[in-house]
């Protein structure tokens, strides 16, 4: 079913070539979000799209080898932590929540530069959280696939159930 490997050498070769470029493009969308359409959410979605591409063509188990569901859960939490951490750091330094100008003394940079860096920091957190959440959602939807051809060992179900509960 959907979890299996895509038995097509054209699709496999194309995806193997495409995935690094897709990820570079995601990083561009993330880092260039100030000046063009994009930002943390869009960059995260494109990063997740590259992982979904790997899953679609190289199979469910192969994608899990690259990024386990438990790791995805931790990455999601880490993204939220980066976002909230920068926000509360500004709060601790005497500004408002996400008042980036207060970060200027820490980074030893000018006020506009501090604002730019602060926004880049929270966008990175958002991108991490969105990527991990999208990946977990897709993998969980596929794992609940109960069509015919369930020759996949039942052990996988238990194993995946453990990792997903572990991730929360």
């Amino acid at each position, binding site marked *: 079913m959907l979890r299996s490997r895509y038995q097509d050498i054209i699709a496999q070769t194309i995806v193997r070539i495409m995935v690094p470029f897709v990820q570079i*493009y995601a990083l561009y*969308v993330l880092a260039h979000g100030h000046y063009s359409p994009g930002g943390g959410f*869009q960059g995260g979605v494109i990063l997740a*799209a590259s992982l979904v591409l790997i899953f*679609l063509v190289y199979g469910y188990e192969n994608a899990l080898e690259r990024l386990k569901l438990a790791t995805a859960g931790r990455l999601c939490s880490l993204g939220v932590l980066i976002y909230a951490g920068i926000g509360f750091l500004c709060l601790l330094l005497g500004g408002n929540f996400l008042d980036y100008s207060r970060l200027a003394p820490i980074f030893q940079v000018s006020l506009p530069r501090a604002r730019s860096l602060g926004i880049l920091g929270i966008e990175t957190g958002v991108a991490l959280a969105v990527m991990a959440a999208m990946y977990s959602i897709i993998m969980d939807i596929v794992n609940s696939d109960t*069509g015919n051809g369930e020759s996949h060992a039942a052990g996988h179900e238990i194993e995946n159930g453990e990792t997903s509960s572990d991730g929360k």
Partner: protein
Amino acid sequence: MKAFFLGVDIFLCLMVFLCLYRVVFGPTLGDRIVATGAIGTKTLTILVIIGFLYGRVEMFLDISLAYALLNFIGTLAAAKYFEAKGEF
């Protein structure tokens, strides 16, 4: 030149409806998938031309690149799904 590109844009928009007919009434699943891909490709071109008309091609190029990527993934996923169901 802008009038020409506006005309091209409107023409492509009309062509999308022809593809949409194939998507809705297509006899086979292959017709529907190919027509969906064609609509995606046309949308990409329309986006770039709109960017040219607004004088901000570089921004619309980013959007159309992301659109092309998602279109590719969508077609791949649909093909895999129908292959797994044994419809082809």
